[in-house]
């Protein structure tokens, strides 16, 4: 879910802005070249992923970044997936070497 949430450039921009502090939905929407319902839809994806939380006071909905979620995901993606990517590349190198050996 988090991976999907961050796969979109608009949502990454929103997360980046929330990285410098909490913000209202209208403040988040202001620099974005799209309609308010579109922004709200992006925020819903971010909330569903657990990356963003929001609360409403009166008519203003304020969003904040759940930094801990981002840290955990960063570790997950960086360490585990990257490790497997490297290993599977090395497996490819190994298979290529084995094939060359057999041909000789």
């Amino acid at each position, binding site marked *: 879910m988090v991976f999907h949430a961050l796969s979109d450039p608009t949502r990454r921009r929103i997360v980046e802005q*929330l990285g410098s502090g909490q913000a209202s939905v209208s403040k988040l929407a202001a620099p974005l070249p799209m309609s308010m319902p579109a922004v709200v839809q992006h925020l819903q994806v971010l909330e569903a992923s657990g990356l963003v939380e929001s609360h409403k006071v009166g008519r203003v909905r304020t969003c904040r970044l759940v930094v801990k979620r981002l840290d955990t995901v960063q570790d997950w993606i960086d360490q585990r997936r990257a490790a497997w990517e490297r290993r599977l590349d*090395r497996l490819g190198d190994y298979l290529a070497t084995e094939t060359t050996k057999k041909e000789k």
Partner: protein
Amino acid sequence: MSSVVHDSFSIERSYPVAADKVFAAWATIDAKSQWFGNEEGLEAVGEQTLDFRVGGREHFGAKAEGKLYEFDATYCDIVDNERIVWTYDMHMDGRRISVSLATVEVRPVAGGTTLVLTEQGAFLDGLDTNEARADGTRQFLDALGGYLGA
């Protein structure tokens, strides 16, 4: 306080060799240790072991950046030249940091073999104390954007 995050990912690779050759690279310690474990930046600790049969165990330990990582797996399902399913846990300096279910599927395709590795994991609180946190979100998002080709 304890915490857990669940996540999963898949990685696909194609190799220009037959499926049985790809499968064999996972099935013996001689072959597997050629590409799994002895990576740059890793200093092996103890013996790397592999008992490749259903119920068999695998162990690998290594030091990286001053931390001791231990990988312990149990093979749950093996279909020769087609599929391997195993569970494994990872310890960092003695703390359990994840428990995962991993699957490798090997399929013959024109000109070679496609391998799909899927990992589903429970990511445990050990990492909450990881010192080496990237600072701020910008750096992370830039890297992720690059990674995803965005």
